[in-house]
């Protein structure tokens, strides 16, 4: 009774008739059909569409609003499916994912033990005691999973081999689609990284602070996630003009590891260098959220928030521009 797409996003199914209602598409004017989409019509939507029909007959002035609501629901369903499919893809390649997490765990392991060794003979390093610094390292690790976890690097390959066309001909927004894929990636990685952090804490018997100011830190974190998303997209959009996209990404990853504060808190740097870095987008990726979770709330936090928000807007604009320009000069080798 229901034409529900599973793994295949949008199979080319005949549209125009809702099988469960038995009505031709024309007679259900309030049930929007997006071009190219299958006529998804399960029990919930059936109820919706019946309600819409009923409402539509009673009072047409509400029709537009109801249509809007309906299209939002369908749109959400669409992206929810992208989310589920992305998760399923990870579970298909389970070994790859586990090995990837193992590699990430080793990186955390090295930095954690390095700082642990530094505190064996030192009580304080600058403003940090052992618990504070180890907490910072672990918070940054969790945050970096959320900020750096991305699938946008695949876009470069898709542009080069032309498979990006698959997105362009579908009734979906590419940016939203990629954002949902990224959310799924972050969601899955987050579960694993929390497990890894617990494992390290159990193994070493170290104590850390419980995160504070979660809401405030979360707001900064959201900006960090957006900045990273747009930078990653821009790095992929370079593929519109050259096939050599891995070099700039490699350079970016090398830079981010240090200037975003994943190996040490940035306020350990000499002050002029630290203050200069605050005007760059990097400290807003890991450093600020981690510091806020540690409980350090600076008086100038509003200014820093404005700076991070400005970077989000700047990168958003730049990404849109690159996408628009890139589409005009898009070419790919045959398929």
């Amino acid at each position, binding site marked *: 009774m229901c034409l529900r797409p599973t793994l295949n996003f949008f199979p080319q199914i005949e549209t125009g008739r809702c099988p469960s209602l038995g009505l031709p598409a024309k007679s259900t004017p309030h049930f929007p059909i997006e071009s190219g989409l299958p006529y998804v019509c399960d029990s919930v939507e059936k109820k919706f569409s019946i309600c819409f029909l009923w409402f539509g007959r009673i009072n047409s002035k509400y029709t537009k609003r109801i249509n809007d609501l309906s299209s939002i629901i369908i749109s959400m369903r669409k992206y929810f499916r992208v989310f589920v499919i992305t998760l399923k893809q990870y579970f298909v390649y389970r*070994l*790859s994912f586990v*090995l*990837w997490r*193992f*590699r990430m765990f*080793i*990186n955390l*392991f*090295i930095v954690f*033990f*390095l700082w*642990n*060794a*530094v505190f*064996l*003979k*030192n009580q304080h*390093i*600058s403003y940090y005691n052992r618990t504070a610094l180890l907490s910072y390292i672990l918070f940054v690790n969790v945050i970096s999973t959320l900020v750096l976890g991305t699938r946008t690097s695949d876009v470069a390959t898709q542009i080069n081999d032309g498979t990006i066309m698959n997105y362009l001909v579908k009734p979906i927004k590419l940016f939203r689609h990629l954002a949902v894929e990224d959310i799924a990636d972050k969601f899955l990685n987050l579960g694993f990284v929390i497990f890894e952090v617990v494992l390290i804490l159990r193994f*070493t018997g170290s104590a850390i602070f419980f995160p504070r100011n979660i809401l405030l830190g979360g707001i900064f974190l959201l900006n960090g996630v957006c900045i990273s998303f747009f930078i990653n997209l821009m790095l992929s959009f370079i593929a519109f003009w*050259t096939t*050599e996209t*891995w*070099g*700039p990404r*490699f*350079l970016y*990853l*090398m*830079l981010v*590891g*240090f200037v975003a504060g994943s*190996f*040490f808190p940035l306020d*350990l*740097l000499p002050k002029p260098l630290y203050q200069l870095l605050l005007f760059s987008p990097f400290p807003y990726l890991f450093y600020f959220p981690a510091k806020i979770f540690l409980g350090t709330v600076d008086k100038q936090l509003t200014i820093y928030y404005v700076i991070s928000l400005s970077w989000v807007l700047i990168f958003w604009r730049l990404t849109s521009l690159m996408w628009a320009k890139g589409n005009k000069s898009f070419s790919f080798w045959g398929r």
Partner: protein
Amino acid sequence: MIKSFKNNLKIFFLYSKFSWKTTFQMRLGVIFFMLGKIFRFVLFFFLIYLIFMRAKMVAGYTINQAIIFYLTFNIIDTASQVFFREVYRFRPLVTSGNFDLVLLKPFHPFLRVLIGGVDFLDVFMLIPYIIITFYLAVHIAGVSPSSLFLYFLLLCNALVIAMTFHIMVLALGILTTEVDHTILIYRDLTTLGRFPLEIYREPIRGLFTFIIPIGIMMSFPPYALFNILSWRLLIYSILASCILLFISLKLWDSALKKYQSWGG
């Protein structure tokens, strides 16, 4: 014997020439990669400096000694990248069936799949590492010509161990077609040797010294340079590399016997 060696050397240089040409076809990528590698080196250097600016000693080592550990890691890691880069490209050979063509050639397949793709970008990085290490080593108190010789000997030993790991990855690549993650896990594990092994607690330290010989590869050469490596451990490290070489070659032979050609 000498003729065969000369022939192999000739083939090695031929493949290296191809690799040079392939690498420098992508000039923009080369620039970004070199910049990335330089940044990584400088920034880790800076991290060590930053730590020692705040703490005089870490795990019993001074800043110069910690830098020697770091440089030794870089020399071994980079040298193994220079020689064994082709291993990273082995999987497509197996899955496409083109490995058959390698096996048909009248020379040892290692010439193609193990050392057939010299990474020239890493050659450029290796030279400054060696110069800085030598400069620092002669400025550390207590370093004698014999300790320098032992340091060099253990660097070669580390490269043999690195080679055995790469051969094992090739063998696993034939058996399972999984190469990418295996080699990257090996590389991540070796990064444990970027800092002295003393920063890790037991049993991790023992595990990464005696079971997975990262310590032998990365930490033993600096120990020899600082005259803190016992003769017992020196002999153990050479024995370990010989045993690993034997095991890896046996694994390779056994993998070759089980190899089934793919594709058409």
